[in-house]
């Protein structure tokens, strides 16, 4: 039985909007999710059911209100929800990767460096990192002539492919993917599905949000359904 890489226990998360008189929006309650090495769990549910909130909580980008988020880091299960900032950064560095839905663009940094940075930060030699970044960008159909350019002027699909390369290159044992194929054409969707399958076969535990049913069927071992805590108006 493959080891549990990620497990939440009674995870709850809501938002208090102080600028709106302190309205409270509960989003997640009692979420218990478990993901094993080599498994891909796709979060399902209608818009507003808390899929992104759950994903961001798993990354430590949102602060959990109660419950635990156990991550297998350095061989042990560590509670991310109770971890201090330095510990969260260490977990993200070594163990937990996240591919957001949109690339956060930084001025002046060429696409190749955006992708290679993660690898260099993990100790890979610069030349090797640049070589692997080049290969991955080419696999995602980003041609050589774009590698030296900052992605600010790229199309949405191109930016997202740079984002995907950046997220996949480091080989984190746990990957969180938010709509990995949303801006992509059919050819590139196939490339990403292959990359996800390869990651799974290497033992990567994956949690994904994916509205495209074909892609979902191709990658998901299991669906994890979420229902909105509040009824739609």
């Amino acid at each position, binding site marked *: 039985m493959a080891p549990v890489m990620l497990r939440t226990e009674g995870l709850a998360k809501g938002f208090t909007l102080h*600028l709106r008189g302190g309205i409270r929006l509960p989003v997640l309650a009692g979420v218990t999710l478990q993901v094993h090495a080599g498994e891909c769990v796709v979060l399902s549910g209608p818009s507003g059911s808390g899929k992104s909130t759950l994903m961001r909580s798993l990354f*430590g980008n949102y*602060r959990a209100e109660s419950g635990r988020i156990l991550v297998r880091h350095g061989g042990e299960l560590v509670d991310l929800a109770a971890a201090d*900032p330095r510990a969260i950064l260490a977990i993200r560095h070594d163990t937990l990767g996240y591919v957001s839905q949109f690339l956060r663009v930084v*001025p002046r940094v060429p696409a190749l460096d955006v992708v290679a940075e993660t690898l260099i930060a993990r100790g890979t030699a610069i030349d090797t990192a640049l070589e692997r970044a080049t290969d991955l960008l080419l696999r995602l159909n980003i041609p050589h002539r774009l590698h030296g350019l900052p992605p600010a002027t790229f199309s949405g699909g191109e930016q997202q492919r740079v984002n995907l390369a950046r997220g996949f290159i480091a080989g984190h044992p746990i990957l969180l993917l938010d709509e990995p194929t949303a801006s992509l054409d059919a050819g590139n969707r196939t490339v990403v599905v292959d990359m996800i399958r390869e990651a799974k076969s290497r033992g990567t535990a994956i949690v994904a949000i994916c509205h495209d049913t074909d892609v979902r069927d191709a990658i998901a071992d299991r669906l994890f359904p979420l229902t909105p805590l509040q009824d739609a108006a």
Partner: protein
Amino acid sequence: MSEATLLSARGLTLRFGAIPALVGVDVDLWPGEMLAVVGESGSGKTTLLNVLSGRLAPDAGAVWYRDPAGRLHDVHTMPAPALRTLHRSDWGFVQQDPKQNLRMNVSAGGNVGERLMAQGARHYGNIRAQALDWLTQVEIDADRIDDLPRTFSGGMLQRLQIARTLVTHPRLVFMDEPTGGLDVSVQARLLDLIRSLVTRIAAVLVTHDIAVARLLAHRIAVMQRGRVVETGLTDQVLDDPQHPYTQLLVSSVLNA
């Protein structure tokens, strides 16, 4: 938290007459991390920076620095010569106005080399070579090494200040609005430089620009009227702000 902090402050309080500039402020900074201090004008961020760096004494509270040997020093009770030595070597300070930290009647190379000489360097050839290396790293043309800074643009002056500051390989750098007042393209270049050069160096960065904090800092402290109202992981504080003032600050920022 297995590693000891590099700089810690507890209960910092300071009034300017009737105005409370700092009210019970605690700060921790670990080796190699960048802490951004954000807040609006008058929130106390620059005052905090000045107190942390020993340039301004608080009415109450203390600041401790852990030297490379692991010994703790109270920044405000250490002998003045010792504090000066710290500022010349292990510490650096990047001012918003670079002219305040540069000698305008000394060449660019001289400005960088001076810090080395203050540390005891004597070999002219070596000093000049290091100065040249640093000017290159901050993207100042090598042939400007003998030019006076009065001929430099604002962006160049700021980059020269950074070279002068980093040449002594400080462990801790204080930065006060390093990109303040610069044109956006100049700012982008400077941020890129800071991002690549200030790695594995601990830094306290005061900025009113939340986007700069997000780009550069590991952790962020939000100040309002002399108090730190929220502290934490940068992306968590900015994407999931808990305190009402942080929520206001984050929701007020325009996205280009």
